């Protein structure tokens, strides 16, 4: 049985071209970027080159990019780095985040709370949207940072980042966004969008695991999490992971060339696959869509009819607020872990926000924030498409899913 991977939001395979670009830096060009000799120079040169490529992706300057080991590290560095930037934080100790952040933001914020900081969690609407006006209202003189995820890893909702950026800049508060799911997929311009700090990840865009970055606007001071040899301008000591960073840059370059040229062909392709999937899945009895309605057909979300949405330009995230590759559903009387494992037995890999599949036995905080009840969130299914997804694979899921749902409901006392 050929396996079908539809969990690209979790991680992606390394693109062969990326692996090829990395290879020389694993063995022959293995130098330490801090060494003075030719081996070190070679490593330093390619590090600078990679930094330039990644900075260009978001219209930043190379000296504004700090390489890290993961998006989790970048997010920790953003929050804690700003929070502990004394002396300002001595009196200004308020941080605003959204209620649908990734756990690495939420847990960092919770920890800062234990260290005496005040945290405000913003609510979202039923589509997972933060209202920028809420941010404007919550900002007070003590506020030092606002952090809002650019695109949701669970439901794909894309936030009004430029609007939030504008508000924060006007109020003189730093604005951080976790762009792990959007970087490389939709255009980001940190200058135009007034973004002060931004997190991006390599393994979500067909690069290797173990590389992330934090963009910090020139002039903003943060404190490092790691002290040592002074790499990355003293903000992230550690021997630089050159092969992973080379891969990260190559992966970004491919995204720019293939996914984001004029007309956004890759987003268009994924959007049409995703919409076909959504249309078909919503035909299943008692099925619902999570997140923003995508296109020009009538859809239901949480049992509510959402009406018709215009088939406006489904490109680049400009006129839609859902990632092209994300679909998320919930089904009445279905438990997600069972659903995922049944799909896995059919060779299809997806993901769920069910409590039973998490370490804490709590359902997805994102789905709860959009107004779902826990028993509804248990029945959620996330399907995330990617570069190597074919229409045949999506068709396979469309064929198998109704049968599996029927089977699980047959076993359930609720029908």
């Amino acid at each position, binding site marked *: 049985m050929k396996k079908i991977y539809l969990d690209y939001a979790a991680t992606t395979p390394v693109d062969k071209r990326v692996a090829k670009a990395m290879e020389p830096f694993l063995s022959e060009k293995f130098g330490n970027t801090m060494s003075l000799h030719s081996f070190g120079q070679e490593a330093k040169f390619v590090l600078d080159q990679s930094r330039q490529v990644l900075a260009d992706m978001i219209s930043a300057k190379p000296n504004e990019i700090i390489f890290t080991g993961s998006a989790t590290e970048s997010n920790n560095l953003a929050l804690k780095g700003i929070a502990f930037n004394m002396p300002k934080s001595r009196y200004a100790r308020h941080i605003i985040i959204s209620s649908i952040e990734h756990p690495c933001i939420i847990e960092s914020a919770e920890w800062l709370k234990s260290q005496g900081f005040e945290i405000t969690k913003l609510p979202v609407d039923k589509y997972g949207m933060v209202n920028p006006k809420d941010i404007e209202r919550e900002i007070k003189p003590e506020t030092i940072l606002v952090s809002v995820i650019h695109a949701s890893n669970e439901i794909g909702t894309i936030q009004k980042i430029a609007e939030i950026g504008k508000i924060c800049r006007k109020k003189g508060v730093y604005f951080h966004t976790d762009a792990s799911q959007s970087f490389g997929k939709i255009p980001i311009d940190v200058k135009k969008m007034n973004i002060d700090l931004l997190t991006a990840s390599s393994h979500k865009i067909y690069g290797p695991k173990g590389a992330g970055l934090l963009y910090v606007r020139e002039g903003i001071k943060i404190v490092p999490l790691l002290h040592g040899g002074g790499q990355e301008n003293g903000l992230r000591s550690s021997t630089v992971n050159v092969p992973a960073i080379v891969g990260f840059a190559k992966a970004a370059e491919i995204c720019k060339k293939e996914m984001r040229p004029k007309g956004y062909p890759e987003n268009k392709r994924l959007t049409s696959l995703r919409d076909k999937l959504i249309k078909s899945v919503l035909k299943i009895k008692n099925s619902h869509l999570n997140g923003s309605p995508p296109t020009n057909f009538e859809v239901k979300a949480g049992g509510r009819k959402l009406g018709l949405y215009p088939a406006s330009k489904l490109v680049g995230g400009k006129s839609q607020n859902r990632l092209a590759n994300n679909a998320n559903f919930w089904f009445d*009387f279905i*438990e997600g*872990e*069972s659903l995922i*494992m049944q799909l896995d*037995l059919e060779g299809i890999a997806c993901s769920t926000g*069910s*409590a*039973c*599949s998490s*370490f804490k*036995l709590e*359902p997805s905080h994102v789905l709860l924030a959009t107004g779902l*009840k*826990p*028993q509804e969130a*248990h029945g959620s299914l996330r399907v995330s498409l990617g570069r190597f997804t074919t229409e045949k694979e999506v068709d396979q899921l469309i064929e198998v899913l109704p049968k599996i749902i029927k089977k699980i409901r*047959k*076993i*359930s*006392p*609720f029908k």
Partner: protein
Amino acid sequence: MKTKINNNICGGLYTKKVLETFKNPHNYGKIKNADGIGKVGNIVCGDVMWLYIKVGKDEVIKDIKFETFGCVAAISTSSIITDLVKGKTIKQALKITKDDIIKSLGGLPKIKYHCSVLAVDALIEAIYDYFSKNKKEITADLKKKHEIIQKSKDIIDKKYEKWTK
């Protein structure tokens, strides 16, 4: 050095037997005119297990079926308990413990142990239901177990009232 497997992680750590049982569960469905029904769990938590029993001559549980809403572990433990109970007398069935279930499944992730407890509780409730419906004598031990199950059920139901109403 002996490496210790982290039992708190689910997903990849289900045993082959658990996955096989999950794929092809035995004895699922409803028994019409069941002699006893045990209903445990809460939908907000994510597991609900209903057990139906049919009791024959000499207090032998001649048929048993389950209906379960829940994860892989909940469905597997439901199926296994029906296998363990079928054909046994009530007295023998009441001796089945969560450890018997876990053993029959070749192990469960620790985080899923509560599913095996749920299966045992469902059986106790079904037998209790059978005894009380037929006005049979209920041992102090069974009564106590029933009360503990009901008490914790009430606490959970109350805790999650806002979601279920």
